[in-house]
């Protein structure tokens, strides 16, 4: 067992000293889907000290084409993703301490789990959670690595509190209704390409080789053979509410969070976001998913066994369920 990291220690920038540091570090991965499982596998194989994984979902057959670690049996048994991942990761490296939480990540549930965390890897699937995480990690001074993918495209960016622009700086305006894997599809190499960048930056941070950090936002399209690194220094905004001089961390406030409520006796959940829906954009994304009908004020979609109605003012009704977990899952599959 002594030489399980021998080839990693032979890589000069890591060496024996770097390997020692890697083994002392604690990483939290938020999300245990495609990006989450592949990052977790890399970091556990690389020999980090402790890993915390968080996800609210269970394994389904439609996950298997792109999500590492999971097997058909996990989908048949509908095992929670973090539990399935933990058992596979422990078989890969029994030296790593793995803490699994079946949890809907909010500012309230996430904060206590961030004690003594050295680095966070973004493996979420929506901007609401990312902007909350961005505020929280700026406040707690924890670096994190943004990653996202859809279709054959993806991007990644390493965020160091007070040193680099944050996600809020980069998105500038309100977050868009981004394309999701459930509306635009996904191929597994796009996942791995993002993960390769995230894991490399993580290793640099863990061993303290900050001179080697990429500092640019990387964006690629594997199917169309495109790869670009974009300088973003100028995006840093001293008036940014997340990382600026007078940060107010808006996504940590109750008013800014996305709220859910069950509409009694109607088998319907209402989700209220604190931003307007871009109905035309959304209709464009969702036409691959099912028939979309609507007008200037609302959009209606038949999706699986549900009827989903989006209102321009930010409300969404999910008819056909009275489970908030279920409704949120469908919501983020569609609006991103």
């Amino acid at each position, binding site marked *: 067992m002594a030489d399980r990291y021998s080839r990693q220690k032979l890589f000069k920038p890591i060496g024996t000293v770097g390997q020692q540091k890697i083994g002392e570090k604690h990483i939290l991965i938020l*999300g245990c*889907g*495609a*990006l*989450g499982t592949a990052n977790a596998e890399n970091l556990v194989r690389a020999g980090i000290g402790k890993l915390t994984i968080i996800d609210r979902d269970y394994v389904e057959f439609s996950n298997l084409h792109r999500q590492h670690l999971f097997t058909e049996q996990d989908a048949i048994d509908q095992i929670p993703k973090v539990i399935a991942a933990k058992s596979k990761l422990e078989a890969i490296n029994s030296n790593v301490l793995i803490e699994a939480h079946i949890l809907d990540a909010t500012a309230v549930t996430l904060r206590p789990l961030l004690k003594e965390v050295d680095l966070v890897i*973004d*493996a*979420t*699937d*929506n*901007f609401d959670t*990312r902007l909350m995480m961005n505020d929280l990690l700026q406040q707690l001074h924890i670096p994190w690595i943004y*990653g*996202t*993918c*859809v*279709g054959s*495209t*993806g*991007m990644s960016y390493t965020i160091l509190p007070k040193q680099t622009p944050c996600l809020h700086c*980069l*998105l*500038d*305006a*309100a*977050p*868009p*209704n*981004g*394309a*999701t*894997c459930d509306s*635009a599809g*996904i191929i597994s190499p796009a996942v791995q390409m993002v993960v390769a960048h995230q894991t490399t930056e993580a290793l640099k941070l863990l061993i303290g080789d900050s001179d080697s950090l990429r500092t640019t*936002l990387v*964006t690629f*399209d594997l199917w*169309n053979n*495109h790869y*670009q*690194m*974009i*300088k*973003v*220094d*100028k*995006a840093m905004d001293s008036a940014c509410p997340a990382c600026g001089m007078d940060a107010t961390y808006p996504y940590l406030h109750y008013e800014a969070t996305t709220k859910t409520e069950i509409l009694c006796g109607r088998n319907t959940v209402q989700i209220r976001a604190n931003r307007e829906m*871009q109905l*035309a*954009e959304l209709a*464009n*994304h969702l036409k691959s998913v099912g028939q979309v009908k609507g007008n200037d004020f609302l959009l209606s979609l038949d999706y699986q066994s549900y009827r989903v109605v989006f209102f321009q003012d930010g409300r969404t009704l999910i008819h056909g369920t009275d489970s908030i977990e279920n409704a949120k899952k469908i919501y983020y599959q569609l609006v*991103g």
Partner: protein
Amino acid sequence: MITILLFAHLQESVGKDRIEFPIEQLTVKELKTALQQDYPLLELDHVMTAVNEEYARNESKVTAGDIVAFIPPVSGG
């Protein structure tokens, strides 16, 4: 001439991955407005813009010879 690179679903909307736009100088915002008149691009309000591989805001200038990339933020994971 300004070269515009389109990423992700913007490619699909327009049906090609680059546009050559014959103009001398304008701002990113003006370029977006001009493109939306000629092409079915609904979503340019929310895209990230890079001019010559450097992040640019709406008020940034674009000059003939520049390469502008429009990158829609995606949220999958």
